[in-house]
């Protein structure tokens, strides 16, 4: 009996150990599959965290112009500091504005780039609203190293926030062949006002049937050019108060605009492609605009030698108006996120100081920078065959120095939206003083 008992016990322990073995096996199998899934889940997160300061991100638009310039700068900087990884991301300008607004409004720096390109007209809007989010670069660069008119948009309270980039210096691009048909030469356009310009246009239209200018009813760029040439702007010097009702320059500009219409020398376009098409198809005899149009004009190689660039006409009857103005142009801003120091260093060593880089940008891409020291280089004094051997860069550089500095403020585009509507009223016969005072009233009620 006793023996049987012990035998049974022995069997029991044997069974137990077998059961244990099986359980162990199952648990291990389960663990195995668990750990497997964990592993795969983990792999996604690695990689992005390492060395944040060694990696900077830049947002910009226009692959042919700004992005291309960045790629050059990246190459240059790689020789100086090869450890830093520079990510260049292209977005449409409107996307950048939207993303910046979203990011800055939410108060988090997450998702924002280290460096961002901002158009000069909008720069103050961002700087004044989100001053703390941008890095003061006063220690890295000197505002005085760049064209004076750039200091308005890029600085705030005496601190330099932006690295001025491309120039928006304007010129009057003209078809010399059409001019010649109408009996004019490029030299006849050197010192004219807009009235004289319209007179020439009438002749050209008569002789060639071509329009003098092409205009977009929704873009008052030409008005902006005109008033800045007279040192005036939509806003007063403080950048906040609307300056429309008693703005003499603006009034004169509106009148010139109406005259362009009334004299029937204007072509109309509604978008960028139509604008460029009008130039390339030879539909218009002239284009007063920023120098960045050069690339688009040169795209039509068959017109080589048929273009010339004259200084911008002045506002008739306005003493302050000069033969130089600005349209467009943008600057780089360093944001207060991780890696700001690296980003500032990147900017200071490339766009902030590198003369050779600017030479390269000019020859390879056609970027006219605003860095004063680079304006003396060889590339700047080269003759341009497309423009009949004219030393266009030298000319632009000369005009750049004349551009009157204005404070674009933070409401340029808001006011322009009002003016676009009022311009239609004006063209339809509304009194100019009424037009401007109505605009003033609207602006004052909208902008506070």
């Amino acid at each position: 009996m006793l023996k049987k008992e012990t035998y049974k016990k022995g069997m029991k322990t044997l069974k137990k150990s077998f059961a244990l073995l099986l359980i162990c096996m199952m648990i291990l199998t389960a663990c195995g599959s668990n750990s497997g899934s964990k592993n795969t889940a983990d792999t996604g997160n690695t990689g992005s965290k390492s060395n944040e300061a060694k990696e900077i991100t830049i947002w910009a638009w226009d692959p042919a112009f700004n992005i291309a310039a960045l790629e050059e700068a990246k190459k240059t900087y790689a020789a100086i500091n090869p450890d830093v990884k520079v990510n260049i991301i292209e977005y449409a300008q409107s996307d950048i504005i939207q993303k910046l607004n979203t990011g800055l409004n939410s108060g988090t720096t997450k998702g924002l780039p280290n460096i961002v390109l901002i158009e000069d007209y909008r720069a103050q809007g961002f700087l004044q609203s989100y001053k703390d989010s941008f890095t003061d670069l006063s220690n890295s660069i000197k505002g005085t190293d760049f064209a004076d008119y750039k200091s308005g948009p890029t600085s705030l309270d005496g601190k330099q926030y932006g690295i001025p980039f491309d120039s928006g210096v304007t010129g009057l691009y003209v078809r010399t062949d059409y001019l010649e048909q109408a009996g004019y030469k490029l030299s006849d356009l050197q010192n004219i006002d807009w009235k004289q310009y319209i007179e020439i246009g009438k002749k050209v239209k008569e002789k060639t049937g071509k329009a003098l200018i092409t205009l977009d009813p929704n873009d008052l760029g030409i008005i902006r050019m005109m008033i800045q040439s007279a040192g005036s702007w939509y806003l007063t010097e403080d950048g906040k108060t609307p300056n429309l009702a008693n703005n003499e320059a603006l009034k004169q500009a509106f009148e010139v605009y109406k005259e362009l219409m009334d004299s029937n020398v204007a072509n109309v376009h509604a978008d960028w492609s139509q604008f460029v098409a009008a130039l390339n198809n030879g539909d218009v005899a002239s284009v007063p605009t920023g120098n960045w149009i050069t690339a688009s004009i040169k795209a039509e190689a068959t017109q080589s030698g048929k273009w010339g660039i004259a200084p911008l006409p002045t506002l008739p009857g306005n003493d302050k108006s000069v033969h130089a103005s600005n349209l467009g142009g943008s600057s780089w801003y360093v944001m207060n996120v991780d890696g700001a120091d690296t980003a500032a260093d990147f900017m200071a060593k490339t766009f902030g100081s590198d003369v050779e880089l600017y030479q390269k940008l000019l020859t390879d891409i056609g970027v006219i920078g605003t860095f004063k020291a680079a304006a003396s280089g060889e590339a700047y004094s080269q003759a341009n065959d497309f423009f009949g051997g004219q030393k266009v860069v030298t000319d632009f550089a000369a005009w750049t120095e004349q551009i009157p500095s204005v404070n674009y403020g933070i409401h340029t585009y808001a006011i322009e939206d009002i003016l676009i509507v009022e311009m239609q009223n004006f063209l339809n016969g509304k009194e100019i003083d009424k037009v401007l005072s109505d605009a003033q009233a609207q602006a004052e009620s909208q902008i506070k």
Partner: protein
Amino acid sequence: MRAIMERFKFYSLFIKIFIVMVVSIIAVAISASWTTVRMSEKLFMETFSITNSKVINQIKANFESFHYSIVTATNNTQLSGTIKSFLTEEDSDSTRVFRSFYNMTTQMKRIQSNVDAYQVGIKIMGQNGRSYSTNTNNLLMTDEELRNHKITINTMADPKRLMYQFYQEKSTPTSSQEAVIVASKSLMERTTGDTYGSLYFTIHEKAFQSFYSSMVSGGNDVAILNKDGLIVSSNQSELLGQKADDLLQDAKDIQEKGLDYKNVTFRDKDVIVLADYLSSYDFYIVNLIDKKTALGQMVDTKMVALICSAIVIVALIVVFLISRKLTRSLTLLTRQMSKITERNFHNYITVTGSFEFQELGHAYNYMLDELNDYVERLVQTQKEQRNAELAALQQQINPHFLYNTLSSVKFLVQQGSKEKAVHTIHALISLLQNALSNVSETITVTQELENLKSYVFINHVRYGERIRVNFFIAPDTIDYHVPKLIIQPFIENAFFHGFNKKSEGYIHVLISQESGSLLCEVVDNGDGMESGGAELSLSNESKRQLFTGIGIKNVHDRIILLYGDEYGVTIISKVNEGTTIKIRLPLINT
């Protein structure tokens, strides 16, 4: 080789157990992990397809709401007189054109707000050559190119339909081949049926992806196919613009047969395909789930296999050790037991091993004990039986002997030799006294000698003294003990059979000590026998003449029984020369 086989024979139990265990463990491990993997795969696939079909519905809703916005924008455009006049009027003076452009753009901005939620560009193009686009980035071709493009031709061919077409920029030399989806509709005068222009909504394929991008993940891809099987949008950019007729066929199958999903091979990959039809677009949404990737995230087969094999190996080692330990004692036991035939019952085994085998060993040893005991007792019993037999025989004093002896005494008394008669009776008494006492007792050589002398005396009285008997006793042997009546049968034998032919002779009785044993010799010079060493033929022995029942035949057996094999009787006999009988006995002092 044979030795090895022989060796293996003892391990056959172990080998069998081990093989069975190995096979079953491996089978269990393989089947368990296989089933687990299969089941989880199946479950995963089921849930995946269920959730994915739900997500597809959501995607569909996204597409539908986008389509709704486009339809609204289209209607607004068609209803707008401003846009119609912009697209139909002829060029006039700057101011009027300018106003027309301005009004149109204002109108277009309003229409654009219908699709503001999406990154959509709108383009209108009129029969008068005017055009407008809200976002220049969308269609990278000139008006002239667009006018002659397949997109426009298709639109014009079916003026009542809003159609979605795929366009991939190929003219740009740069790598960024922008793919766009173009929704187009011809602008038609309702009353007359004249088309006065066309309307295009362009959405970048990347923006199009946002309708479904939330659902895609590694191994879970989405492709949008048009009715020609062209992939117009996919999160896998390399698929973009590719023809996938097989996929289209699968999508149609799923749609027509109402399948939940379908398993197919696409681009050398096993995939699960889910599909739905977007009627307003005439597109198919196809969801491709790469089994390998999707399952790879879920079940790490390699890991499972690795762990299983590790467990199997551990289990095998454990099983090997345990079963070896179990069978080892059995093997030893078997080996020891197998030797039992070679030796005797004293081959006890060493008790080792597990409890069971210890018990078995104990039982076996116990059995041997019992067996030995039994055998011993059997031998003892036989001895006793033999002794009893001898005693019985010994006590059978032949009545003839008594009769003859008493007759002889009677004659002696009649003859008057009273002296001799007394002597004879005296010898008889002494003889009977010894013979009748306990047969197992031993007596000294002196006493035995006395018996012999008495017997010889009686014989001489009866048959005369023609056979003389001489005793030669070594003095150092007289105190040793011998079994009773051990020599007497041989003298008797010599008396009655040794001298049948010869009339007279002698019998010598010699007792001496030789190499540790007592040697008694009975030597006669009588007739002798033919067969030297053979059993004495005593069959015709006359019972009447014997003193007791103990014949010489029994003597040898009796000695062996008492003292062992090395003792006993040997006979040397030669015809006409006599017989020598040697009785070897141990030296017994008490």
